[in-house]
């Protein structure tokens, strides 16, 4: 009997500890979704600074769940109505000047989106962290969790590792660091300017900072954001992309 109990205890100890990983996965998913809501409409300003220029884009964005996303430029006037539609894993751009919709080919997924430090791939994959990665808690305090995200063996992702900071008690993202396959840090995504909107905490500012180019960065500042608006999948169509 004792032997049996001992065996039982040992086997339980040897089992991978599922409790934490489920928790972390759910936590990350919650944090990510909190940021998106079930659906949302927002106005944001993209401020992009590169070695040769700096510019600001004002845009409107709509989202439905994680898989539907539409964004349209309002300013500057030269690029007004340039728009991007993301449905599932595909991205289209609309160019009003030539009145054409262009589907972003797989080979260009790593390219910059609207000249910023966000890639097309970010748009497609960014919100799938909880599905593509496995998690380990590397630091826990009253102020934050630090979670290391390692891609699952079969996941098609561009990062070698992501270190995800979740600020407590609001449960919002803090600094998210992205590492390449050689485990060299490539960029930081910093979330701040946290406001309480519709009963949830939302960081209204997001800064993308490439590590090897300290002079460059993209800042996304939300000026207006509404959650759980009435919007259907039909809104996210190529027709509506052109408008």
């Amino acid at each position: 009997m004792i032997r049996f109990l001992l065996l039982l205890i040992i086997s339980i100890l040897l089992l991978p500890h599922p409790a934490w990983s489920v928790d972390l996965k759910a936590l990350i998913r919650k944090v990510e979704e909190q940021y998106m809501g079930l659906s949302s409409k927002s106005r944001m300003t993209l401020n992009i600074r590169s070695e040769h220029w700096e510019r600001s884009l004002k845009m409107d964005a709509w989202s439905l769940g994680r898989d539907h996303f539409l964004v349209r430029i309002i300013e500057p006037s030269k690029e007004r109505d340039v728009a991007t539609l993301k449905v599932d894993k595909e991205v289209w751009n609309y160019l009003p000047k030539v009145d054409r919709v262009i589907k972003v080919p797989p080979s260009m997924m790593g390219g910059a989106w609207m000249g910023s430090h966000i890639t097309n791939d970010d748009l497609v994959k960014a919100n799938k962290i909880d599905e593509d990665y496995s998690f380990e808690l590397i630091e826990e305090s009253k102020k934050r969790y630090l979670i290391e995200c390692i891609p699952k063996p079969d996941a098609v992702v561009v990062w070698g590792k992501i270190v995800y900071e979740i600020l407590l008690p609001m449960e919002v993202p803090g600094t998210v660091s992205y590492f390449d396959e050689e485990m060299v840090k490539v960029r930081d995504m910093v979330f701040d300017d946290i406001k309480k909107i519709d009963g949830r905490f939302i960081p209204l500012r997001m800064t993308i900072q490439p590590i090897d180019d300290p002079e460059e960065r993209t800042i996304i500042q939300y000026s207006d954001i509404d959650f759980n608006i009435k919007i259907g999948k039909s809104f996210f169509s190529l027709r509506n992309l052109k408008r």
Partner: protein
Amino acid sequence: MLLRLASRNLWRNRRRTLLTLSAMVVSLALLTLSLGVFSGMLVDILASTTEQYHGHLVITADDYLDDRDMYKNFSSDEQLLRKLETDEVVIGFSQRLRGFGLASHDESSYPVELLGIHPEMEKSVTNLHQQLAEGAYLSGNNGNGAVIGSSLAKKLKVSPGDELVFVTQAADGSIGNDLLIVRGIFRTGHSGHDNSLVLVPQQWLQKVMTLDGKIHEIAIAINAPLRAADYKPALATLLPQGLSITDWGELLPEMREAIASFDVSRLIFVIILYFATGLGILNTIFMSVMERTREFGILMALGLRPGQIKRLVLLESLLLGLIGTLLGLVCGLILSYYMSRFGIDLSTWITPITYAGGTMQPRLKAIFEYRNFIEPAYLLVVVSVLAGFFPARRAANLQPVQAIRED
């Protein structure tokens, strides 16, 4: 006296001499022919990339070639252009602006490399206008025509007259985009160029990329492509501060290696062939010396010194070498001329091969290169004299009395 003696000796056994001579003639003729074809392939493969894209030399802003950063551009410089025009080595040059982006038609989009050119200037450096599979080349500096590679055209499913959308990030950070009309489609056989290269009018590209009046490079064609590296320093002195010049050997190190390795294989080829030929000559002379042992004994008894005997035999082999070389050269020239005029087309059996960054066309075609004739000819004479050396020494060392007694 010795010369007359030598030539008479040579023709005594006419059949043997002619046989040896024919071996020499055939080996020299085939050697010059195959070297000519080799050189033809090499010039072909070099031309496939320099004359379809790079130019033999290229002037860029310092470091531009490292990453082709669009900001490493420069303004067109009239003074520099005039200097290039008057340079006697330079046969043509083309100012280009380069842009990378996405070309799209209907549902499909592919990454492309755009070269903004002046069509007339470009024709003096590259020969894409001669490789059109469909449509026509660009005609003016304005408009929004495009000449694109055949594989790209196939992927995008466009033919002349169709529209293309080009999207790129302009120099001011904005999203540069505009329509192009496909004018022509070129097919070079070089998969990289056929898959992604697009020629457009320079002004059009400058506008889309917001780089008015700017260019990225001046591609240069010269009259002796294989000597580009030799001409580089002289051309470099023409350049203003901030610009540098690069030759094709630096642009295409694999190509330079390929050409250097050709020189080595040429040497090996020559050695093998001449070793066999040399043995043939040695055999002929040796046999004739053996046959004439008695005769040499008598000559020596008459007062010919061993040195003179040696010289006589050497002269025979030299004479044989000279005649063989002369006839071989004539045959080689005729064969090479035929192969350069007509060549052999292999395109029924094989497709173009991309090798060392260039493309080998499926054809055999000889070119005339001075050294492909001079070196083998000179070597053949040397080989025949060397082959004569051993028999000559043997003849010179004969003891007159014993030699006369020999049957």
